[in-house]
């Protein structure tokens, strides 16, 4: 059975802290790994990772995929209160389906 597991489920930090969110996957017909940020409404796309070991960066956010160990991490440096959200990881299959993890709820306090 295809499965995506995220940890931790919840994280509370202070502004300025650096956080690492984890995502492990067991997905057949794996195509890529996606990260989304969900604030109050629709998840918005952050990264798509297809190749192992190549870091993707967007401002203070970065992510990397390890296809041998079947995991990905999302790093956020110098966190801000606006980073508070649920971060979703999803495995994309060759069948166009996405398998989502349960998400990590990040709360950043001033």
């Amino acid at each position, binding site marked *: 059975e295809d499965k995506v597991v*995220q940890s931790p489920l919840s994280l509370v930090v202070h502004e300025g802290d650096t956080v690492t969110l984890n995502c492990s996957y067991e997905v057949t017909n794996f195509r*890529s790994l*996606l990260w989304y940020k969900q604030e109050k409404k*629709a998840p918005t796309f952050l990264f798509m990772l297809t190749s192992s070991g190549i870091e993707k960066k967007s401002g203070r956010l970065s992510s990397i995929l390890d296809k041998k160990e079947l995991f990905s991490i999302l790093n956020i440096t110098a966190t801000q209160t606006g980073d508070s959200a649920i971060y979703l990881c999803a495995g994309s299959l060759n069948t166009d389906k996405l398998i*989502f993890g349960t*998400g990590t709820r990040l709360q950043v306090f001033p």
Partner: protein
Amino acid sequence: DVKVTQSSRYLVKRTGEKVFLECVQDMDHENMFWYRQDPGLGLRLIYFSYDVKMKEKGDIPEGYSVSREKKERFSLILESASTNQTSMYLCASDGGEPEAFFGQGTRLTVV
């Protein structure tokens, strides 16, 4: 910008009612999806459609049906709503690439 629009943000329905959730996308995407999101369970796929009139069951199709008569519109139908279908429902679409675009979500409460 891709836009995925769900017809209602909040809905309250009674047990046993038939409920329609509508989703429209404006980017000519082939694939459309319906998920429900529950605390601790993440997003779970209910149904998806890869073309007009085509549909496939996702992981939790029981109690739901779907309709895709036009490419831009994908409807989720609860034939007889039950309290365990109280949830956030998210529609998404993609054009064959892994990145999916989501609607704003419909929070359905069944009383």
